């Protein structure tokens, strides 16, 4: 059994973005998604800084320092791309105009509560950025994360331990081991990686899981880790 690497998690999540979707990608694993969106789909990427219709990361000699994304990294426009000010950007985000926000997370609860902004460390100032706006505002929140912490502890919990970003907002979780839907009947496993049985998955998941009748195995291509 080989867990998906970060790029493969991004690949898997990218397959579920439909043609014509308006999507915000958070930092971390979600930022890897653009490379894996099927080429026949036109997906419009938005960033908090006030840009929509972002294209690929420019080559170093083509960087325009005035075109950057919410991680303040260089980006580019595709034809049709445009900018707007912050009030319009968060009108877009908070007002339910984005189809999907793909976010990283520390923890997700079985009710879809999201914790992705604050580890409660008193030594550092808590930094929320646009996390709460996205969590409350986008039509669907999908989380991409390693299934467990570095020391093997579950991140999918009965109840989040870290301070919440927003309650009841996550619709789907893409991890290194599985794709899990958050439903009114609890967490439903839609896909798992090869050679992982359900008991093994439940063992590294605090919240109770059930297996979807449509369950299948993820067949991810081999992709090298880039970040």
């Amino acid at each position, binding site marked *: 059994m080989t867990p998906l690497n970060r790029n493969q998690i991004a690949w898997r999540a990218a397959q579920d973005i439909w043609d014509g979707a308006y999507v915000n990608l958070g930092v971390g694993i979600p930022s890897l998604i653009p490379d894996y969106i099927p080429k026949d789909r036109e997906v419009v990427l938005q960033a908090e800084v006030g840009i929509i219709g972002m294209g690929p990361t420019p080559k170093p000699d083509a960087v325009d320092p005035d075109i950057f994304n919410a991680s303040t990294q260089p980006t580019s426009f595709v034809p*049709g791309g445009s900018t707007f000010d912050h009030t319009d950007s968060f009108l877009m985000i908070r007002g339910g105009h984005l189809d999907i926000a793909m976010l990283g997370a520390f923890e997700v609860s079985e009710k879809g509560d999201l914790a992705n902004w604050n580890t409660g460390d008193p030594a550092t100032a808590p930094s929320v950025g646009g996390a709460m706006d996205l969590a409350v505002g986008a039509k669907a929140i999908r989380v991409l994360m390693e299934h467990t912490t570095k020391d093997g502890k579950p991140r999918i919990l009965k109840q989040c331990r870290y301070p919440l970003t927003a309650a009841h907002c996550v619709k789907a979780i893409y991890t290194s081991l599985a794709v899990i839907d958050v439903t009114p009947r609890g967490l439903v496993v839609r896909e798992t990686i090869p050679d992982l049985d359900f008991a093994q998955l439940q063992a590294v998941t605090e919240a109770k899981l059930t297996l979807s009748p449509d369950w299948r195995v993820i067949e991810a291509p081999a992709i090298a880790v880039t970040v």
Partner: protein
Amino acid sequence: MIDKQVASLEEAVAGAKDGATVLVGGFSAGDEPAALSEALLSTGARDLTIVNNGVGGLARGIAALIAAHRVRKIVCSYPRFVGGTAFASAYKSGEVALEVVPQGTISERLRAGAAGLGGFYTKVSAGTLLGEGKETRIIDGEPYVFEHPIKGDMALIGAQQADRWGNLVMRHSRRNFNPVMAMAAAVSVAQVREMVPLGHFHPDQIHCQGIFVDRVVVVDPEPKNWSARP
């Protein structure tokens, strides 16, 4: 591929339901997207609530909807149009209900609806006839009234140009309510004078992003009622 252009006015307004709230852009009858608003006649939808700055003009658009008994209520700031009789007689007879809202409060309520806000406090109308019955709060020693968001089931707006993503550019005084209405509706439809190729617009100079627009239809700008003053 994203292509929001539709071929006909009927497709543009398809799905309008009885009892729907329809946001109609433009500042007055002179720049009302009248081809769209009267295309609503073809849907058969009744009991409409129309949100507009006014109550339509002489005969086209909103005035035609009122005359055809499709309108139950109008939310506007200025329910008067020189020479217009459609609204005036439907108001007198009690057929059409009226909610008069200060002009800036209309656009702010629409923006609140568009932006996912639950409402806001404004000084405008506090202590007046239009403020009666509204929740009032003293803020920094002055009375403010609470205003609720407005959302539309459909928005019918006008623009100069569109690309296939539904990005829009408006011209001069014709911007007015059009962007905020596109933002505040579940289905937003733009009547435009011209389609342009994707990438035609400068990225910093789009007045309403395509994310807020669902359908675009080109309407011949020649008919006098669309381009002429009221």
